[in-house]
Protein backbone atom coordinates (compact mmCIF):
# COMPACT_ATOMS: atom_id res chain seq x y z
CA UNK A 1 0.00 0.00 0.00
CA UNK A 2 1.17 3.54 -0.67
CA UNK A 3 2.32 5.66 2.26
CA UNK A 4 -0.52 7.22 4.20
CA UNK A 5 -0.73 10.95 3.56
CA UNK A 6 -4.21 11.82 4.79
CA UNK A 7 -6.87 13.53 2.74
CA UNK A 8 -6.72 17.24 2.02
CA UNK A 9 -8.77 18.01 -1.07
CA UNK A 10 -9.52 21.62 -0.10
CA UNK A 11 -6.05 22.56 1.11
CA UNK A 12 -7.22 22.75 4.69
CA UNK A 13 -3.60 22.41 5.73
CA UNK A 14 -3.29 26.08 4.89
CA UNK A 15 -5.65 26.82 7.80
CA UNK A 16 -3.46 25.09 10.38
CA UNK A 17 -0.28 26.47 11.91
CA UNK A 18 3.06 24.78 11.34
CA UNK A 19 2.93 23.66 14.96
CA UNK A 20 -0.50 22.08 14.56
CA UNK A 21 0.68 20.23 11.47
CA UNK A 22 3.78 19.06 13.29
CA UNK A 23 1.63 17.61 16.06
CA UNK A 24 -0.52 15.83 13.51
CA UNK A 25 2.43 14.46 11.58
CA UNK A 26 4.27 13.30 14.67
CA UNK A 27 1.25 11.33 15.91
CA UNK A 28 0.57 10.04 12.40
CA UNK A 29 4.09 8.66 12.20
CA UNK A 30 3.85 7.11 15.64
CA UNK A 31 0.61 5.38 14.72
CA UNK A 32 2.15 3.99 11.53
CA UNK A 33 5.36 2.82 13.17
CA UNK A 34 4.25 1.69 16.58
CA UNK A 35 0.53 0.98 16.68
CA UNK A 36 -0.50 -0.42 13.32
CA UNK A 37 1.96 -3.33 13.39
CA UNK A 38 0.25 -4.52 16.60
CA UNK A 39 -3.39 -3.86 15.90
CA UNK A 40 -4.47 -7.16 14.36
CA UNK A 41 -2.93 -9.23 17.10
CA UNK A 42 -4.81 -7.24 19.73
CA UNK A 43 -8.00 -7.04 17.72
CA UNK A 44 -8.08 -10.82 17.42
CA UNK A 45 -7.27 -11.34 21.09
CA UNK A 46 -9.66 -8.65 22.30
CA UNK A 47 -6.94 -6.77 24.17
CA UNK A 48 -5.51 -3.27 24.24
CA UNK A 49 -1.74 -2.79 23.63
CA UNK A 50 -0.88 -1.67 27.15
CA UNK A 51 2.79 -1.91 26.21
CA UNK A 52 2.36 1.36 24.29
CA UNK A 53 0.91 3.36 27.17
CA UNK A 54 4.27 4.64 28.51
CA UNK A 55 5.15 5.89 25.02
CA UNK A 56 1.79 7.59 24.74
CA UNK A 57 2.47 9.34 28.03
CA UNK A 58 5.89 10.36 26.75
CA UNK A 59 4.33 11.78 23.57
CA UNK A 60 2.03 13.84 25.77
CA UNK A 61 -1.33 12.76 24.36
CA UNK A 62 -3.12 12.33 27.70
CA UNK A 63 -4.65 15.67 28.64
CA UNK A 64 -2.57 17.67 26.15
CA UNK A 65 -4.66 20.83 26.46
CA UNK A 66 -3.98 21.27 30.18
CA UNK A 67 -1.39 23.92 30.91
CA UNK A 68 -0.53 22.44 34.30
CA UNK A 69 0.17 19.13 36.10
CA UNK A 70 2.39 18.02 33.22
CA UNK A 71 0.09 18.85 30.28
CA UNK A 72 1.53 20.43 27.16
CA UNK A 73 -0.95 23.32 27.06
CA UNK A 74 -1.93 22.81 23.42
CA UNK A 75 -4.99 24.30 21.76
CA UNK A 76 -8.08 22.33 20.83
CA UNK A 77 -7.20 22.09 17.14
CA UNK A 78 -4.09 20.20 18.16
CA UNK A 79 -6.15 17.99 20.43
CA UNK A 80 -8.55 17.26 17.60
CA UNK A 81 -5.76 16.46 15.16
CA UNK A 82 -4.21 14.07 17.69
CA UNK A 83 -7.46 12.15 18.03
CA UNK A 84 -7.96 12.15 14.26
CA UNK A 85 -4.60 10.46 13.82
CA UNK A 86 -5.19 7.98 16.63
CA UNK A 87 -8.50 6.87 15.17
CA UNK A 88 -6.86 6.53 11.77
CA UNK A 89 -5.14 3.68 13.58
CA UNK A 90 -8.16 2.26 15.40
CA UNK A 91 -11.21 3.56 17.25
CA UNK A 92 -10.08 1.52 20.25
CA UNK A 93 -6.84 3.49 20.47
CA UNK A 94 -8.73 6.76 20.25
CA UNK A 95 -11.26 5.52 22.83
CA UNK A 96 -8.48 4.77 25.28
CA UNK A 97 -7.18 8.31 24.93
CA UNK A 98 -10.65 9.93 25.01
CA UNK A 99 -11.52 8.12 28.22
CA UNK A 100 -8.24 8.94 29.88
CA UNK A 101 -8.24 12.58 28.75
CA UNK A 102 -11.79 13.83 28.27
CA UNK A 103 -13.60 11.57 30.71
CA UNK A 104 -11.13 11.20 33.59
CA UNK A 105 -8.43 13.86 33.52
CA UNK A 106 -10.98 16.50 32.50
CA UNK A 107 -13.47 15.99 35.38
CA UNK A 108 -10.71 15.76 37.98
CA UNK A 109 -9.22 18.97 36.60
CA UNK A 110 -12.55 20.78 36.20
CA UNK A 111 -14.48 19.49 39.21
CA UNK A 112 -11.82 18.10 41.56
CA UNK A 113 -10.18 19.47 44.70
CA UNK A 114 -6.59 20.70 44.69
CA UNK A 115 -5.62 17.60 46.65
CA UNK A 116 -7.25 15.30 44.07
CA UNK A 117 -5.57 17.11 41.19
CA UNK A 118 -2.16 16.83 42.77
CA UNK A 119 -2.67 13.22 43.67
CA UNK A 120 -3.90 11.93 40.32
CA UNK A 121 -3.27 14.30 37.42
CA UNK A 122 0.52 14.07 37.01
CA UNK A 123 0.37 10.26 36.99
CA UNK A 124 -2.59 10.19 34.61
CA UNK A 125 -1.01 12.65 32.19
CA UNK A 126 2.20 10.60 32.21
CA UNK A 127 0.20 7.43 31.51
CA UNK A 128 1.18 5.83 34.81
CA UNK A 129 -2.36 5.84 36.20
CA UNK A 130 -5.21 4.67 33.98
CA UNK A 131 -8.73 5.94 34.48
CA UNK A 132 -12.20 4.82 33.45
CA UNK A 133 -15.53 6.61 33.43
CA UNK A 134 -18.56 4.90 34.89
CA UNK A 135 -21.81 6.51 33.82
CA UNK A 136 -23.84 3.95 31.84
CA UNK A 137 -25.77 1.30 33.75
CA UNK A 138 -27.44 -1.88 32.51
CA UNK A 139 -30.84 -0.15 32.52
CA UNK A 140 -29.77 3.43 31.88
CA UNK A 141 -27.85 4.23 28.69
CA UNK A 142 -29.36 7.07 26.69
CA UNK A 143 -31.05 8.27 29.85
CA UNK A 144 -28.21 8.44 32.39
CA UNK A 145 -30.24 10.74 34.63
CA UNK A 146 -32.26 7.71 35.67
CA UNK A 147 -29.24 5.96 37.17
CA UNK A 148 -29.75 3.91 40.30
CA UNK A 149 -26.17 3.64 41.58
CA UNK A 150 -26.25 5.26 45.01
CA UNK A 151 -23.89 6.88 47.45
CA UNK A 152 -24.73 7.07 51.13
CA UNK A 153 -23.08 9.40 53.64
CA UNK A 154 -21.53 7.37 56.46
CA UNK A 155 -19.48 9.52 58.82
CA UNK A 156 -16.13 10.19 57.20
CA UNK A 157 -16.83 8.02 54.18
CA UNK A 158 -19.33 7.38 51.43
CA UNK A 159 -20.67 3.92 50.69
CA UNK A 160 -21.38 3.17 47.03
CA UNK A 161 -23.71 0.50 45.70
CA UNK A 162 -24.67 -0.25 42.11
CA UNK A 163 -23.35 -1.47 38.78
CA UNK A 164 -21.97 0.26 35.71
CA UNK A 165 -21.82 -1.38 32.32
CA UNK A 166 -19.96 -0.92 29.01
CA UNK A 167 -17.12 0.84 30.72
CA UNK A 168 -14.09 1.38 28.47
CA UNK A 169 -10.81 0.56 30.29
CA UNK A 170 -12.79 -0.72 33.31
CA UNK A 171 -10.70 -3.85 33.71
CA UNK A 172 -7.46 -1.93 33.13
CA UNK A 173 -8.07 0.97 35.44
CA UNK A 174 -6.20 2.25 38.44
CA UNK A 175 -9.08 4.55 39.26
CA UNK A 176 -12.68 5.01 38.19
CA UNK A 177 -14.66 8.24 37.98
CA UNK A 178 -18.05 6.90 39.03
CA UNK A 179 -21.29 8.86 38.83
CA UNK A 180 -23.84 8.03 41.52
CA UNK A 181 -26.78 9.64 43.30
CA UNK A 182 -26.20 11.12 46.74
CA UNK A 183 -29.52 12.18 48.27
CA UNK A 184 -31.04 11.98 44.79
CA UNK A 185 -28.42 14.31 43.20
CA UNK A 186 -25.83 13.02 40.71
CA UNK A 187 -22.29 13.38 42.04
CA UNK A 188 -18.88 12.23 40.83
CA UNK A 189 -16.66 9.98 42.95
CA UNK A 190 -13.11 8.76 42.50
CA UNK A 191 -12.87 5.06 43.31
CA UNK A 192 -9.40 3.55 43.32
CA UNK A 193 -9.12 0.04 41.97
CA UNK A 194 -8.30 -2.20 44.90
CA UNK A 195 -10.83 -0.56 47.19
CA UNK A 196 -12.92 -3.19 49.02
CA UNK A 197 -16.29 -3.61 47.39
CA UNK A 198 -15.10 -2.47 43.95
CA UNK A 199 -14.64 -5.09 41.26
CA UNK A 200 -14.66 -5.28 37.46
CA UNK A 201 -15.70 -7.94 35.00
CA UNK A 202 -14.65 -7.69 31.36
CA UNK A 203 -17.40 -7.94 28.75
CA UNK A 204 -16.70 -10.45 26.02
CA UNK A 205 -18.27 -11.25 22.67
CA UNK A 206 -17.94 -7.82 21.09
CA UNK A 207 -17.79 -7.73 17.29
CA UNK A 208 -16.74 -4.11 17.62
CA UNK A 209 -13.94 -2.14 19.26
CA UNK A 210 -12.13 -5.35 20.01
CA UNK A 211 -8.77 -3.66 20.60
CA UNK A 212 -10.34 -1.95 23.60
CA UNK A 213 -11.30 -3.41 26.95
CA UNK A 214 -14.95 -2.93 27.98
CA UNK A 215 -16.04 -3.95 31.45
CA UNK A 216 -18.70 -3.90 34.11
CA UNK A 217 -17.95 -2.09 37.34
CA UNK A 218 -19.51 -3.61 40.41
CA UNK A 219 -19.91 -1.56 43.58
CA UNK A 220 -20.92 -3.57 46.63
CA UNK A 221 -20.82 -1.61 49.87
CA UNK A 222 -17.77 0.11 48.46
CA UNK A 223 -16.48 2.49 51.12
CA UNK A 224 -14.44 5.47 49.94
CA UNK A 225 -13.07 8.43 51.92
CA UNK A 226 -15.16 11.60 51.82
CA UNK A 227 -12.26 13.37 50.15
CA UNK A 228 -12.97 11.28 47.02
CA UNK A 229 -16.12 13.13 45.99
CA UNK A 230 -15.63 15.65 43.17
CA UNK A 231 -16.55 18.80 45.10
CA UNK A 232 -17.13 21.31 42.33
CA UNK A 233 -20.11 19.87 40.45
CA UNK A 234 -23.58 18.51 41.10
CA UNK A 235 -26.24 17.10 38.80
CA UNK A 236 -26.26 15.72 35.28
CA UNK A 237 -24.20 18.64 34.02
CA UNK A 238 -21.16 16.97 35.63
CA UNK A 239 -21.05 13.92 33.36
CA UNK A 240 -22.51 15.86 30.43
CA UNK A 241 -19.66 18.36 30.65
CA UNK A 242 -17.24 15.45 30.24
CA UNK A 243 -19.24 14.05 27.35
CA UNK A 244 -19.02 17.36 25.49
CA UNK A 245 -15.24 17.08 25.69
CA UNK A 246 -15.19 13.49 24.54
CA UNK A 247 -17.70 14.04 21.73
CA UNK A 248 -15.56 16.87 20.44
CA UNK A 249 -12.67 14.43 20.13
CA UNK A 250 -14.82 11.73 18.57
CA UNK A 251 -15.96 14.14 15.85
CA UNK A 252 -12.29 14.51 14.88
CA UNK A 253 -11.48 10.86 15.40
CA UNK A 254 -14.16 9.76 12.97
CA UNK A 255 -12.46 11.77 10.23
CA UNK A 256 -9.31 9.75 10.85
CA UNK A 257 -11.15 6.45 10.49
CA UNK A 258 -12.82 7.68 7.29
CA UNK A 259 -9.50 8.83 5.87
CA UNK A 260 -7.92 5.45 6.59
CA UNK A 261 -10.77 3.76 4.75
CA UNK A 262 -10.63 6.16 1.81
CA UNK A 263 -6.88 5.79 1.45
CA UNK A 264 -7.09 2.02 1.48
CA UNK A 265 -9.98 1.91 -0.99
CA UNK A 266 -8.44 4.34 -3.44
CA UNK A 267 -5.23 2.33 -3.44
CA UNK A 268 -7.05 -0.95 -3.79
CA UNK A 269 -9.33 0.18 -6.57
CA UNK A 270 -6.41 1.49 -8.60
CA UNK A 271 -4.62 -1.83 -8.50
CA UNK A 272 -7.53 -4.30 -8.59
CA UNK A 273 -8.28 -5.27 -12.18
CA UNK A 274 -11.67 -6.80 -13.05
CA UNK A 275 -12.91 -7.19 -16.60
CA UNK A 276 -10.72 -4.94 -18.69
CA UNK A 277 -9.30 -2.41 -16.23
CA UNK A 278 -8.71 -1.35 -12.64
CA UNK A 279 -12.07 -1.12 -10.85
CA UNK A 280 -11.26 2.56 -10.15
CA UNK A 281 -12.09 3.05 -13.81
CA UNK A 282 -15.76 2.09 -13.38
CA UNK A 283 -18.40 4.71 -12.72
CA UNK A 284 -19.95 2.89 -9.75
CA UNK A 285 -16.60 2.70 -8.00
CA UNK A 286 -15.79 6.34 -8.73
CA UNK A 287 -19.17 7.28 -7.32
CA UNK A 288 -18.24 5.62 -4.02
CA UNK A 289 -14.81 7.21 -3.87
CA UNK A 290 -16.23 10.63 -4.65
CA UNK A 291 -18.90 10.24 -1.99
CA UNK A 292 -16.22 9.49 0.57
CA UNK A 293 -14.01 12.38 -0.46
CA UNK A 294 -16.95 14.75 -0.45
CA UNK A 295 -18.13 13.75 3.03
CA UNK A 296 -14.64 13.70 4.51
CA UNK A 297 -13.99 17.20 3.22
CA UNK A 298 -17.24 18.53 4.72
CA UNK A 299 -16.50 16.81 8.02
CA UNK A 300 -13.06 18.41 8.11
CA UNK A 301 -14.57 21.86 7.82
CA UNK A 302 -17.07 21.17 10.60
CA UNK A 303 -14.25 20.15 12.91
CA UNK A 304 -11.92 22.92 11.94
CA UNK A 305 -14.61 25.47 12.76
CA UNK A 306 -15.65 23.62 15.90
CA UNK A 307 -12.06 23.59 17.15
CA UNK A 308 -11.73 27.32 16.60
CA UNK A 309 -14.96 27.94 18.49
CA UNK A 310 -13.81 25.69 21.33
CA UNK A 311 -10.60 27.68 21.53
CA UNK A 312 -12.33 31.08 21.54
CA UNK A 313 -14.88 29.89 24.08
CA UNK A 314 -17.95 30.29 21.86
CA UNK A 315 -18.66 26.59 21.22
CA UNK A 316 -22.07 25.29 22.25
CA UNK A 317 -22.63 21.65 23.17
CA UNK A 318 -25.27 21.36 20.44
CA UNK A 319 -22.64 22.22 17.84
CA UNK A 320 -20.57 19.36 19.20
CA UNK A 321 -23.62 17.13 18.80
CA UNK A 322 -23.89 18.08 15.15
CA UNK A 323 -20.24 17.27 14.49
CA UNK A 324 -20.33 13.97 16.39
CA UNK A 325 -23.56 12.96 14.70
CA UNK A 326 -22.48 13.89 11.19
CA UNK A 327 -18.90 12.73 11.29
CA UNK A 328 -19.43 9.33 12.87
CA UNK A 329 -22.30 8.65 10.49
CA UNK A 330 -20.24 9.64 7.47
CA UNK A 331 -17.28 7.55 8.64
CA UNK A 332 -19.48 4.52 9.12
CA UNK A 333 -20.99 5.01 5.65
CA UNK A 334 -17.49 5.34 4.17
CA UNK A 335 -16.47 2.12 5.87
CA UNK A 336 -19.54 0.27 4.62
CA UNK A 337 -18.96 1.45 1.06
CA UNK A 338 -15.28 0.71 1.35
CA UNK A 339 -15.85 -2.77 2.68
CA UNK A 340 -17.82 -3.55 -0.43
CA UNK A 341 -15.20 -2.07 -2.72
CA UNK A 342 -12.60 -4.51 -1.46
CA UNK A 343 -14.69 -7.50 -2.42
CA UNK A 344 -13.79 -10.66 -0.53
CA UNK A 345 -10.50 -9.14 0.62
CA UNK A 346 -12.56 -6.58 2.47
CA UNK A 347 -13.83 -9.12 4.98
CA UNK A 348 -10.35 -10.06 6.19
CA UNK A 349 -8.00 -8.33 8.60
CA UNK A 350 -5.34 -8.01 5.97
CA UNK A 351 -7.15 -4.76 5.27
CA UNK A 352 -8.36 -2.27 7.85
CA UNK A 353 -11.73 -1.36 6.41
CA UNK A 354 -13.87 -4.00 8.08
CA UNK A 355 -12.18 -3.37 11.42
CA UNK A 356 -13.03 0.33 11.09
CA UNK A 357 -16.56 -0.53 9.99
CA UNK A 358 -17.15 -2.74 13.01
CA UNK A 359 -15.57 -0.22 15.38
CA UNK A 360 -17.70 2.62 14.13
CA UNK A 361 -20.84 0.71 15.12
CA UNK A 362 -19.79 1.31 18.73
CA UNK A 363 -18.74 4.87 18.06
CA UNK A 364 -22.15 5.70 16.59
CA UNK A 365 -23.74 4.26 19.76
CA UNK A 366 -21.58 5.55 22.59
CA UNK A 367 -21.26 9.15 23.71
CA UNK A 368 -24.88 9.68 22.72
CA UNK A 369 -26.35 7.55 19.98
CA UNK A 370 -26.87 9.08 16.54
CA UNK A 371 -30.58 9.46 17.28
CA UNK A 372 -30.02 11.02 20.69
CA UNK A 373 -27.92 13.69 18.98
CA UNK A 374 -30.79 14.22 16.57
CA UNK A 375 -33.00 14.84 19.60
CA UNK A 376 -30.44 17.20 21.17
CA UNK A 377 -30.39 19.22 17.95
CA UNK A 378 -34.16 19.02 17.61
CA UNK A 379 -34.52 20.33 21.14
CA UNK A 380 -32.07 23.12 20.38
CA UNK A 381 -33.86 24.42 17.30
CA UNK A 382 -37.47 23.95 18.41
CA UNK A 383 -37.11 24.43 22.12
CA UNK A 384 -39.22 21.32 22.64
CA UNK A 385 -37.55 18.29 24.21
CA UNK A 386 -38.58 15.07 22.47
CA UNK A 387 -36.64 12.57 24.56
CA UNK A 388 -39.67 11.47 26.53
Amino acid at each position, binding site marked *: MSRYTGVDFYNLDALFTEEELMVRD*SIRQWVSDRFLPLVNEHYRAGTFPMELVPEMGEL*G*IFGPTLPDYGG*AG*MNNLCYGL*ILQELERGDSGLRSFVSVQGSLCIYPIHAYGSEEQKEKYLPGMIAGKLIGCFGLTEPDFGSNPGGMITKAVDDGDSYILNGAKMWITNGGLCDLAVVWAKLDGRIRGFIVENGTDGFSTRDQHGKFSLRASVTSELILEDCRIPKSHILPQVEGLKGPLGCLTQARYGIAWGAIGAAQAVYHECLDYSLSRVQFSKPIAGYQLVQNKLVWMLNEITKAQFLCWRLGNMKDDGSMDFSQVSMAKRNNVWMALECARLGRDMLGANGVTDEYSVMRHMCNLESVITYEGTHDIHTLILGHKITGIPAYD
Partner: protein
Amino acid sequence: MEILVLVKRVPATDSQIKPAADGKSYDPAGLEFVLNPYDEHAVEEALKTKAAKEGTVTVLTVGGKEAQKDLRTCLAMGADKAVLLDPGQEFDGKSLSEALAAKVKELAPEIVFCGKQSVDNDDAQIGPRLAGLLAWSCLTDAASLEIGDGTWTGQRDIEGAKEVVEGKLPAVISCSKGLNEPRYPNLKGIMAAKKKPLEEGSAELGAPALTVIALTPPPARPEPTIVGEGPDAVDALMDKLKNEAKVL
Protein backbone atom coordinates in the same frame (compact mmCIF):
# COMPACT_ATOMS: atom_id res chain seq x y z
CA MET B 1 29.90 19.67 25.16
CA GLU B 2 28.97 21.73 22.11
CA ILE B 3 27.27 19.49 19.58
CA LEU B 4 26.40 20.31 15.99
CA VAL B 5 24.07 18.31 13.76
CA LEU B 6 23.91 18.73 9.99
CA VAL B 7 20.53 18.03 8.45
CA LYS B 8 18.88 18.31 5.06
CA ARG B 9 15.39 18.53 3.65
CA VAL B 10 14.88 15.88 0.96
CA PRO B 11 12.01 14.42 -1.08
CA ALA B 12 10.27 11.54 0.73
CA THR B 13 11.84 8.24 -0.33
CA ASP B 14 8.69 7.00 -2.05
CA SER B 15 8.49 10.10 -4.27
CA GLN B 16 8.38 9.78 -8.03
CA ILE B 17 11.22 12.07 -9.03
CA LYS B 18 10.68 13.92 -12.33
CA PRO B 19 13.47 15.80 -14.09
CA ALA B 20 12.88 19.54 -14.37
CA ALA B 21 12.78 21.37 -17.70
CA ASP B 22 16.55 22.03 -17.57
CA GLY B 23 17.18 18.26 -17.68
CA LYS B 24 19.73 18.61 -14.88
CA SER B 25 17.74 18.94 -11.69
CA TYR B 26 14.50 17.48 -10.37
CA ASP B 27 11.17 19.20 -10.39
CA PRO B 28 10.08 19.84 -6.79
CA ALA B 29 6.41 20.38 -7.77
CA GLY B 30 4.05 17.92 -6.13
CA LEU B 31 6.79 16.27 -4.06
CA GLU B 32 6.53 15.78 -0.34
CA PHE B 33 9.65 16.78 1.54
CA VAL B 34 10.90 15.31 4.79
CA LEU B 35 13.91 15.46 7.05
CA ASN B 36 16.53 13.12 5.56
CA PRO B 37 15.91 9.81 7.39
CA TYR B 38 19.59 9.29 8.32
CA ASP B 39 19.63 12.78 9.81
CA GLU B 40 16.94 11.75 12.28
CA HIS B 41 19.48 9.29 13.65
CA ALA B 42 22.08 12.05 13.78
CA VAL B 43 19.72 14.27 15.78
CA GLU B 44 18.88 11.41 18.12
CA GLU B 45 22.55 10.60 18.72
CA ALA B 46 23.25 14.26 19.41
CA LEU B 47 20.42 14.39 21.95
CA LYS B 48 21.68 11.23 23.64
CA THR B 49 25.17 12.68 23.73
CA LYS B 50 23.82 15.84 25.30
CA ALA B 51 21.95 13.81 27.91
CA ALA B 52 25.20 12.09 28.87
CA LYS B 53 27.65 14.98 28.53
CA GLU B 54 25.50 18.12 28.89
CA GLY B 55 26.05 21.07 26.58
CA THR B 56 23.92 22.30 23.70
CA VAL B 57 22.75 20.82 20.45
CA THR B 58 22.65 23.07 17.40
CA VAL B 59 21.12 21.86 14.15
CA LEU B 60 22.24 23.38 10.90
CA THR B 61 21.01 23.14 7.37
CA VAL B 62 21.95 24.76 4.10
CA GLY B 63 18.73 25.26 2.21
CA GLY B 64 15.79 27.48 1.39
CA LYS B 65 13.22 29.02 3.71
CA GLU B 66 11.04 25.94 3.54
CA ALA B 67 13.72 24.04 5.50
CA GLN B 68 12.69 26.04 8.59
CA LYS B 69 9.99 23.42 9.05
CA ASP B 70 12.55 20.62 9.28
CA LEU B 71 14.68 22.62 11.67
CA ARG B 72 11.61 23.16 13.87
CA THR B 73 11.08 19.42 13.86
CA CYS B 74 14.63 18.98 15.17
CA LEU B 75 14.01 21.65 17.81
CA ALA B 76 10.82 19.83 18.80
CA MET B 77 12.81 16.63 19.17
CA GLY B 78 14.96 18.50 21.69
CA ALA B 79 17.72 20.43 19.90
CA ASP B 80 18.46 23.81 21.50
CA LYS B 81 18.98 26.07 18.52
CA ALA B 82 18.93 26.03 14.76
CA VAL B 83 20.84 27.69 11.96
CA LEU B 84 19.54 28.05 8.42
CA LEU B 85 22.09 29.06 5.79
CA ASP B 86 20.82 30.17 2.41
CA PRO B 87 23.02 28.75 -0.36
CA GLY B 88 21.85 31.25 -3.01
CA GLN B 89 23.04 28.87 -5.75
CA GLU B 90 23.46 25.19 -6.61
CA PHE B 91 26.15 23.32 -4.71
CA ASP B 92 28.03 20.05 -4.78
CA GLY B 93 29.78 18.04 -2.07
CA LYS B 94 32.92 20.12 -2.29
CA SER B 95 31.39 23.58 -2.22
CA LEU B 96 28.94 22.61 0.50
CA SER B 97 31.51 21.02 2.77
CA GLU B 98 33.68 24.12 2.44
CA ALA B 99 30.77 26.27 3.54
CA LEU B 100 30.09 23.90 6.42
CA ALA B 101 33.73 23.88 7.48
CA ALA B 102 33.71 27.66 7.69
CA LYS B 103 30.60 27.59 9.86
CA VAL B 104 31.94 24.78 12.06
CA LYS B 105 35.04 26.86 12.75
CA GLU B 106 32.83 29.73 13.81
CA LEU B 107 30.53 27.62 16.01
CA ALA B 108 33.44 25.55 17.39
CA PRO B 109 31.60 22.35 18.37
CA GLU B 110 33.49 19.37 19.76
CA ILE B 111 31.53 16.91 17.72
CA VAL B 112 29.50 17.06 14.51
CA PHE B 113 26.82 14.50 13.67
CA CYS B 114 25.36 14.07 10.20
CA GLY B 115 23.45 11.39 8.31
CA LYS B 116 25.67 8.95 6.41
CA GLN B 117 24.13 10.26 3.21
CA SER B 118 21.14 12.28 2.13
CA VAL B 119 18.66 10.20 0.24
CA ASP B 120 18.16 12.76 -2.54
CA ASN B 121 21.50 12.47 -4.32
CA ASP B 122 23.14 9.79 -2.19
CA ASP B 123 26.59 11.35 -2.46
CA ALA B 124 27.69 10.36 1.06
CA GLN B 125 30.45 12.96 0.83
CA ILE B 126 29.66 15.57 3.44
CA GLY B 127 30.82 13.84 6.62
CA PRO B 128 34.21 12.69 5.35
CA ARG B 129 34.87 15.84 3.33
CA LEU B 130 34.11 18.05 6.31
CA ALA B 131 36.37 15.99 8.59
CA GLY B 132 39.08 16.24 5.96
CA LEU B 133 38.83 20.02 5.72
CA LEU B 134 38.92 20.34 9.51
CA ALA B 135 41.57 17.61 9.95
CA TRP B 136 39.27 15.92 12.48
CA SER B 137 38.73 12.23 13.07
CA CYS B 138 35.77 10.75 11.25
CA LEU B 139 33.51 7.76 11.77
CA THR B 140 31.41 6.99 8.72
CA ASP B 141 28.30 4.84 8.68
CA ALA B 142 28.27 4.63 12.48
CA ALA B 143 26.29 1.71 13.88
CA SER B 144 27.23 2.43 17.49
CA LEU B 145 29.10 5.11 19.34
CA GLU B 146 30.59 5.54 22.81
CA ILE B 147 32.02 8.91 23.77
CA GLY B 148 34.74 8.98 26.40
CA ASP B 149 36.97 11.72 27.70
CA GLY B 150 38.39 13.36 24.60
CA THR B 151 37.99 10.12 22.66
CA TRP B 152 35.30 8.06 21.01
CA THR B 153 34.84 4.40 20.14
CA GLY B 154 32.52 3.41 17.35
CA GLN B 155 31.38 0.45 15.38
CA ARG B 156 30.70 0.13 11.67
CA ASP B 157 28.90 -2.65 9.87
CA ILE B 158 31.05 -3.59 6.93
CA GLU B 159 30.50 -6.36 4.41
CA GLY B 160 30.35 -9.58 6.43
CA ALA B 161 31.91 -8.11 9.58
CA LYS B 162 31.77 -5.51 12.30
CA GLU B 163 34.63 -3.09 12.60
CA VAL B 164 35.42 -1.38 15.91
CA VAL B 165 37.38 1.83 15.64
CA GLU B 166 38.44 4.59 17.98
CA GLY B 167 39.51 8.15 17.52
CA LYS B 168 40.02 11.46 19.24
CA LEU B 169 37.67 14.37 19.57
CA PRO B 170 36.85 16.62 17.82
CA ALA B 171 35.17 14.33 15.36
CA VAL B 172 32.62 14.08 12.58
CA ILE B 173 30.24 11.14 12.95
CA SER B 174 28.10 10.10 9.98
CA CYS B 175 25.16 8.13 11.27
CA SER B 176 23.50 4.99 9.99
CA LYS B 177 20.11 3.46 10.75
CA GLY B 178 21.18 0.87 13.31
CA LEU B 179 22.71 3.52 15.55
CA ASN B 180 19.59 4.36 17.54
CA GLU B 181 15.82 4.71 17.46
CA PRO B 182 14.97 8.36 16.70
CA ARG B 183 12.41 9.82 19.08
CA TYR B 184 9.13 11.34 17.95
CA PRO B 185 8.74 15.04 18.59
CA ASN B 186 6.46 15.06 21.63
CA LEU B 187 3.83 17.67 22.34
CA LYS B 188 5.82 19.53 24.94
CA GLY B 189 8.79 19.54 22.61
CA ILE B 190 6.65 21.00 19.84
CA MET B 191 5.39 23.73 22.17
CA ALA B 192 8.93 24.48 23.33
CA ALA B 193 10.31 24.59 19.77
CA LYS B 194 8.42 27.82 19.06
CA LYS B 195 10.50 29.67 21.61
CA LYS B 196 13.90 28.34 20.56
CA PRO B 197 16.23 30.47 18.42
CA LEU B 198 16.41 29.90 14.68
CA GLU B 199 19.19 31.99 13.19
CA GLU B 200 19.39 32.71 9.47
CA GLY B 201 22.42 33.59 7.39
CA SER B 202 24.03 32.75 4.11
CA ALA B 203 26.34 29.90 3.27
CA GLU B 204 29.86 30.77 2.12
CA LEU B 205 29.98 28.19 -0.62
CA GLY B 206 33.32 27.31 -2.19
CA ALA B 207 33.72 26.67 -5.90
CA PRO B 208 32.01 23.47 -7.01
CA ALA B 209 34.07 20.65 -8.46
CA LEU B 210 31.28 18.84 -10.25
CA THR B 211 28.73 19.89 -12.82
CA VAL B 212 25.57 17.91 -13.35
CA ILE B 213 25.22 17.32 -17.06
CA ALA B 214 21.96 15.41 -17.16
CA LEU B 215 19.31 13.97 -14.88
CA THR B 216 17.12 11.35 -16.49
CA PRO B 217 14.61 8.92 -15.07
CA PRO B 218 15.60 5.24 -15.02
CA PRO B 219 14.51 3.38 -18.17
CA ALA B 220 10.93 2.12 -18.01
CA ARG B 221 10.62 -1.49 -16.95
CA PRO B 222 9.79 -3.78 -19.85
CA GLU B 223 6.37 -5.46 -19.83
CA PRO B 224 6.54 -8.72 -17.87
CA THR B 225 6.15 -11.97 -19.79
CA ILE B 226 4.25 -14.84 -18.25
CA VAL B 227 5.95 -18.02 -19.41
CA GLY B 228 3.25 -20.37 -18.17
CA GLU B 229 1.62 -21.62 -14.98
CA GLY B 230 2.37 -24.32 -12.40
CA PRO B 231 5.13 -26.96 -12.51
CA ASP B 232 4.93 -27.19 -16.31
CA ALA B 233 6.34 -23.68 -16.61
CA VAL B 234 9.52 -24.39 -14.63
CA ASP B 235 11.64 -25.51 -17.57
CA ALA B 236 10.69 -22.54 -19.69
CA LEU B 237 11.40 -20.21 -16.77
CA MET B 238 14.82 -21.77 -16.09
CA ASP B 239 15.67 -21.43 -19.73
CA LYS B 240 14.79 -17.73 -19.74
CA LEU B 241 16.69 -17.05 -16.51
CA LYS B 242 19.78 -18.81 -17.89
CA ASN B 243 19.81 -17.71 -21.48
CA GLU B 244 17.87 -14.45 -21.65
CA ALA B 245 18.31 -12.78 -18.28
CA LYS B 246 21.66 -14.57 -17.72
CA VAL B 247 21.19 -14.44 -13.94
CA LEU B 248 21.85 -18.13 -13.29
